């Protein structure tokens, strides 16, 4: 059975792109979230195998969302999606429970490697 994924990003553009990369690799996108609050809610509802999480989002940022999700499910597998220059934030996200990260601009092969590491 294919792995299920929840994509969290406030930009449709990014959600579409990450979604396409993962879908082509055989993953099943079962949900999308535009805000940190939505991400936490949807995680509780959908219990995906993998979450991709943008760092900068409205209402609740990605880092706080990771913290909430990990509190709810310590086994949650969250992959951070970061932009260049956000080193400090990514470290904070990892401290909050994120398992790995990818750096924009996304290259499909790198995204998939990171996903494998997270799920591995």
């Amino acid at each position, binding site marked *: 059975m294919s792995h299920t994924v929840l994509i969290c990003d406030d930009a449709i553009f*990014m959600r579409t792109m990450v979604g396409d990369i993962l879908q082509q690799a055989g993953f099943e996108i079962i949900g999308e979230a535009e805000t940190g609050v939505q991400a936490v809610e949807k995680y509780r509802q959908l219990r995906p195998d993998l979450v991709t999480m943008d760092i900068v989002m409205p209402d609740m940022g990605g880092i706080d969302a990771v913290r909430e999700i990990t509190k709810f499910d310590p086994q949650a597998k969250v992959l951070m999606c970061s932009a260049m220059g956000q080193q400090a934030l990514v470290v904070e996200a990892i401290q909050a429970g994120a398992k790995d990260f990818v750096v924009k601009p996304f290259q499909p092969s790198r995204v998939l490697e990171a996903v494998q590491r997270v799920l591995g």
Partner: protein
Amino acid sequence: MDTSRYAELFLTESQDNLSAINHALLELERTPTAREPVGALFRAVHTVKGMSATMGYAVVAEVSHELETLLDLVRRGERAVSAPLMDTLFAATDMLERAIELSVAGRESDVDASTTIAALRSAAATSEPAAHAPSPTTTAKPRKKRSSRRAAASAVAPVTVVVTQDANTPMPGVRAYLVLERARALATVVSTTPDPSTFSDEAFAGRLTIGLDTSAPDDEIDRALRAAGYVADIAITRAAPSTNGHVATVPNGDLPDLLPISAGSASELAPARQHRHIRIDLHRLDTLMNLIGELVITRGRLQQLAATINESALTETVTQASRLVADLQDGIMTSRMVPVWQVFDRFPRVVRDAARALGKQVDFVVSGQEIELDRSLLDEIGDPVVHLLRNAIDHGLEAPDVRVTAGKSPTGRLALTAARDRSAVVIRVTDDGKGIDRERVLVRAKELGLMDASRSELTDDELVRLIARPGFSTAKQVTDLSGRGVGIDAVHARVRALGGTVDIRSTKGEGTSVTVRLPVTLAIVRSLLAKVGDETYAIPMTHVNETVHLEANTIRHVKGAEVLVLRGDVLPLMHLRDVVRLPRRDAGGGQVVVLEVADRRAGMVVDELTGQQEIVIKPFDAVRDGLSVFSGATILGDGVPALILDVSSLF
């Protein structure tokens, strides 16, 4: 990756973000100490940066990166929000917008952002303390302490692991942090070089030395740490530990205190955008619209056929089908409707820039943002409205000192309102400035020979007609913004082409109000069909006030011109036969259509009226070739083409 298919999505989403940026900038300019706009700005710029980097638009990415860097300083309270800073931010936003548009158009090489980038860098480099203390929501910047040696030599480390990363590792420091996490999961970490608090520095060298207290075999350590990714080499030694002393201890579970920057928890700017929407290419809606147009024409034909055959079952079915077509038409029209804020959104910025450039103080109020208009109409109306706003600021509103002398508040009021009025949308720009100088207009009109030299006053109607004339401008000096002889006349021409009207009311010393009336939708209009000779003409119902039988005793002659006396009112009378250059009929009879444009009425004599119909406006090139009394053409239910009368051109 082929990113071309994402270009459209990128563009729309970037435009949303640019709009959010402009809003936040205006907000910040009004309230320089507010924190929310800075968070919103940062988030929007950040999103643009991420998207553009993915699209490979290097210039956009660079500008947004520099903008983000500067905003980060502002967010942390290290740069005060000053007028020069605001100017830099506004200018950078404009550059960003241009760069995005050109990049999407495949002309990235045309963008020269060097000045903008230099300005952003210099603003970020200027060490100027903030005027206000950083608020509690902002936190310390990433540490730059290269040699934070928090502890001296650690306890004995039985296993030393040197991890070398791939040369092209993205964010090597953060990756090193993941290596450290893997090591912690496996064993007790007794030392780390360099100190983890320096990992997130840009200068992280890609090599990490970890001291482990573990009994795990080498291959297990090797496997565990490689799983962190981007590991080129792992060297494990079980010799005596290093005693150089430059090793920091990191007690397990007690993570180093690494810069908890709160990533934008500011409130959302435009809650309206949170509605459930899907994006549809406008071309698809246009295609549907054209199909509906054809369907409406076919329906007309079907109804005529059914009437001829007069068979009850057929008539009933046709009636039902007609109703469904009407519902479908309604549905598609509605799907093309968008609230005017989608275009009005950028106007506060336009007004701000114009006011600054002209040294005016303006209080700009927008209302009726939720009023909906057909998307293509809305796109068309943006520029004329910008023109009206600039005109109002340039020629309407006075400079602050002049206003004070005139007993007014130094800040001028400028209002933009949208409202729905029956099947029309009314957009009005009102200012409380000095009003149009009628004497000057009259003088100019006399100079141009448009007014009789004996006239000493102008009526409102005459005023409108004069200033709407191409090339008629009384601007004393040409400014950068308006007054180049393409003033209100350009607006007038554009609005008329859309089937709308412009009306101007102005009182000297009190202000000017320009009202633009537009049909809610472009493509399908209900029309009255009038016949002259063998030809049928369509008159849009928006301009039809009523129809009356032509009777000889209601016609009078005033100063040689025919007028119609209607319930005591005297209206000018035209003949459609004159308009289309056919000889008038000798026989009496006929009908008069009472036309109405912006509170003015006139009668139009036609041979006969043949009914009402929904007509679909077809593009009609002849309109441009001088036949200015027609706004387009249509195909009627019986398949016969008909010209559509441009009523406002007759007044």
